């Protein structure tokens, strides 16, 4: 089964990113994840202040700078992993350095949609 594990970091996590111990913990975690051979794809993301929100309302594009306000945790990165069951996915989620400060969300990936080819 494929799962996306979504890392949600707190503001102080984002501030700690240049910190050796925090950065080192992520490095060790991602290396172990890759070495286990279960990763399909994944990326870390730039901090939330680099985000841009886009909405289309009444046919009008509304572009807003920055993250959704009023949330304590922001998306910091993600991996798609292929493991036999939810238990293993949760185990990997719990090992993420932000699991003890922010949170990690685990979601099963939808099977690919059957999209007809344009001719």
């Amino acid at each position, binding site marked *: 089964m494929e799962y996306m594990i979504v890392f949600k970091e707190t503001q102080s996590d984002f501030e700690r990113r240049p910190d050796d*111990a925090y950065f*080192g*913990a992520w*490095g*060790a*975690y*991602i*290396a*172990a*994840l890759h*070495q*286990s051979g279960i990763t399909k794809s994944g990326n870390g993301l730039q901090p939330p202040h680099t985000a841009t929100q886009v909405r289309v309302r009444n046919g009008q594009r509304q572009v807003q700078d920055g993250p959704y306000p009023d949330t304590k945790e922001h998306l910091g990165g993600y991996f798609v992993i292929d493991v036999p069951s939810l238990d293993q996915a949760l*185990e990997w989620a*719990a*090992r993420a*350095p932000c*699991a*003890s*400060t922010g949170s990690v969300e685990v979601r099963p990936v939808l099977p690919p949609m059957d999209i007809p080819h344009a001719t």
Partner: protein
Amino acid sequence: MNTGAAEAAALTARDAYGRLVAYLAWRWNDLAAAEDALGDALIKALERWPQDGVPEQPEGWLLTVAHRELLQSARHLGVVQRLADDPLVRGLLPREGDAAPEPFLKAHPIPDNRLRLMLVCAHPAIERGVRTPLMLQAVLGLDAQRIAAAFLVSPAAMAQRLVRAKQKIAQAGIRFEEPEPADLPQRTHAVLEAVYAAYGLAWERLGAAGEQASLNAELAAESLYLAELCVALMPNDAEARGLWALMLFCESRRLARFVPAPDGSERFVPLHEQDTAHWDHSKIERANALLGEAAALDQLGPYQLEAAIQSAHAQRAVTGRVPWGGITQLYQGLLQIAPTLGARVGHAVALGTAHGAARGLAALDELPEAEVRNHAPWWVARAHLLEQQRRWQDAAVALRHGMGLTEDPRLRAHLWYKLQALQAAPVTDTPA
């Protein structure tokens, strides 16, 4: 509000809950109904005792009220008849009002059926994962919400699991009777396993802070109480003593397991590096005495061996050194009976420290790759032995891998600290 009466009610509940539930569940053969009835009786006690004073026999009072509750619901079900020959029920029935029939209870003390209750909770037909929660609720009266918090699941999910387990007990006809003598060792082992699981939960979740930390401390205290109860209820079971000893050894080191880190958080300290001045020596003494009593019963088992390993580590407080050779032998004994992954890794470390790192590394390499690939302690053990061979770079690689597999931030902080030290070591990679 008479707080003394409220305290007395709470204290009676703590002491008597398991005994009363066990008795009622055994009598009525219905755990859920017994808990409900006793719960109602406790609520009534909290209403009445502050006004009327605490009865001379609080347990008898609670039992009377709970019986009455059960009879009332039983009348609806038409099952009163089968209880009519119970002398205790007969003795309680004719009385009206809420005063307990104390002279009767003095002559007929409530039998202690808590062992039967524990055996039912850890019955092989009950799913392993729910045995510990069931025991915490039935024997100690912990509410589903607190149990859920300790097990890190939602209160609704925990309540549902408990209800389902109790339905299973009722529907599968699991009886509140003594198991057959031939089954007894296996059945008591399941009880001890469930008690140890409660303690393990509190112990392993090192990273907890704030409210979770106090919950863990509470869970540790409750599971120690259960272990003590097992020894009291099974005085001839050496493994019950072994388990209690093992838990006391672990408890004795509670304060030595962490040191403050520069950033204000805490860092884990491995057993052999702990400051023995922070160990609780009275607990160590008590645990050693229990191990001695267990040995006299002449039934060796995994809990006694694990406790003996802890006892050997505790010798460092007196002699200043760890008897690694003896620990290796104890692990070899443990591997004969219970070759868990943890025991095999522990054995490799002891072997490598006592008889040369190469032998320890060879023992680690013998473990199945699929089992150890994502097992952090295996990588940390490997790093430790490679470090003894002064293979700094290899050790750092293994340590970093172990760190990536670690869930607990305080343990991660310790591994990071070690990694920094390793990377500061001389660059020459010369195997010793």
